[in-house]
């Protein structure tokens, strides 16, 4: 467990420095008093056979707030955890989830990454428990965003869980940003096939909610990612699958893909670069995809003899 205790008096600088230090000391005393009392109320003894969460929870909340204001983050995190427990015991999962999120934010500031993941996952579960799927997914997304630099695999898991939650609740449209974030993270980790799978899943979700623009863009992005990963066959198979859909086959993105494939079939790198640089469709894709497209072609380009399936 990481512990950081900041010295008092090094925080806010007001004109009257002495008053701020005393104010902070007062807060610390109040917080410690609340914490002590709340711990007392929740400790079983000979005279107390049942934990008094009803009275202890507000004390924990007050203590957490005061600790947070004086930047005693470790103590604030513990207080928030206890407050969340108290709210759970009082059958109030919404408030418990809020406290868990607050604890997660503090854990992030303390660089306790495992705890960040746990807290946000618990918060999400609590939101789902009280029937609020969107806030649950948002909690997972916030947690993933917090840890994606240092724990990318956990972040990806959380992103995909958020997508699954929204898909199960028929709210695919709210998941578009999550798909984009997940695919960008996969690309950053050089996991191009997984990124392409996420993009195709995005296209499927867009198809379900009739978002044709996003659907076509997602399919074209997946094709570009496959080509960047030097998987011409996978890209072609992906294109053939996508072209069987009327929505994509009649779109500008399909024409762009056809030009790209014809340039690849001829095996001319200059032609490929020319198609990408003069295309008016590729600049409207996500910035990570544009970056990959500008680096095409990757690897050795030979003239391809694999024919495109005739979709007529």
């Amino acid at each position, binding site marked *: 467990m990481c512990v950081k205790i900041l010295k008092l008096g090094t925080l806010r600088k007001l004109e009257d420095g002495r008053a701020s230090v005393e104010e902070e000391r007062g807060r610390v005393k109040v917080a410690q008093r609340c914490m002590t009392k709340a711990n007392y109320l929740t400790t079983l003894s000979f005279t107390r056979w049942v934990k008094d969460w009803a009275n202890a929870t507000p004390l924990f909340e007050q203590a957490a707030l005061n600790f947070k204001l004086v930047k005693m983050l470790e103590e604030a995190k513990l207080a928030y955890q206890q407050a969340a427990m108290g709210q759970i015991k009082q059958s109030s999962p919404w408030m418990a989830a809020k406290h868990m999120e607050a604890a997660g934010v503090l854990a992030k500031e303390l660089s306790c990454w495992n705890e960040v993941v746990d807290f946000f996952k618990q918060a999400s579960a609590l939101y789902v428990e009280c029937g609020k799927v969107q806030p649950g997914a948002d909690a997972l997304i916030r947690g993933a965003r917090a840890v994606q630099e240092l724990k990318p695999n956990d972040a990806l898991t959380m992103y995909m869980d958020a997508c699954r939650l929204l898909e199960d609740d028929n709210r695919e*449209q*709210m998941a578009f940003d999550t798909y984009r974030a997940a695919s960008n993270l996969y690309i950053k980790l050089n996991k191009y096939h997984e990124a392409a799978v996420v993009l195709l899943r995005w296209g499927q979700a867009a198809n379900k*909610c*009739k*978002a*044709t*623009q*996003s659907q076509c863009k997602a399919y074209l992005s997946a094709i570009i990612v496959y080509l960047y990963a030097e998987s011409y066959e996978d890209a072609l198979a992906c294109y053939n699958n996508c072209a069987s859909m009327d929505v994509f086959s009649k779109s*500008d993105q399909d024409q762009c893909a056809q030009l790209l494939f014809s340039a690849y079939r001829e095996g001319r790198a200059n032609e490929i670069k020319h198609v990408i640089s003069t295309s*008016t*469709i590729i600049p*409207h894709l996500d910035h990570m995809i544009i970056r990959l497209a500008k680096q095409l072609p990757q690897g050795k380009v030979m003239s391809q003899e694999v024919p495109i399936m005739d979709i007529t």
Partner: protein
Amino acid sequence: MSVIDILTRVDVLCKKYEKYDLDKQWAGADSMSGNDQFLRLYTVVEADIEAAREKSQDAQSEKNRAVVATLNAEVRRSKAALKAEIPKLEKLAAKKVKDLSKEEMAARPDLIVALAQKIEDIPDGVTVGRRGGTWGRKASNPLEIKLDAMHPDDLMRPEHYEQTEESLALRQEYEMRRAKQDEGLDIIAAGLTTLKDMAGDINEELDKQMPLIDEVDTKVDRAAADLKNTNIRLKETLTKMRSNRNFCIDLILIVLILGIGGTLYTYSFSPFTPSYVCLQPLLMYQQSFAVTREQLSVFILNAIVSC
């Protein structure tokens, strides 16, 4: 004044007063189906010349250059077609027609010449200063660039298909202008693609926001209804609390309590009660201040009445 000028002047005058010439109108109806094919063709060619002249005047007054070019091209085409009719007229003029005088027969070739001159005189935006030229002229200057005015002799010359400086310059200018137009069209296409993409994204975003707004709308309506009910109930409660009936009841109760208190106090000073013994020192204390029991009870009763 030459014969041609006289004929032209006569034509103009006849045309002006055509509506008064009953014979001509009747004869026109007859001769159209009659034997004089020359006259028929001549009339048609004259009408076409008039139409071409009107078109040429429209082209001169038009400001739009594209429309001017189109009209000029049509005028040139009409002129070429009319020039092709002249040999037919010459053949028909040589035919003998019944009931036609010798002078009229002799005047027909002059009419044809005048007609050819009229065709040449129609401005078509290309040919300038061709007055005095006659039909049957020799091949024109081989180096002059002409549009829609091909002479058969020109086509047979070998130099006809060679490039000249003027034609090269024209071609280069044409290519340059075409490239500029293509460039402009490419820029417009790119801008339109961007607009289309933005419009598509906006459309999707609106579709996403619509159910959320509907949900917010429902919840706000529900909250407003709850608030309204709560306000009504609060108002009723306040009205009940502040009613006059309650105020009177409160007053009566206070008076009763004071009365009971006073009675108890009075009763406590009676010698037949145990409390009298306890209160004796108090009574003696009261007496020291010359306050009698009667005066005290009167005082208390007055206090009750005043309340």
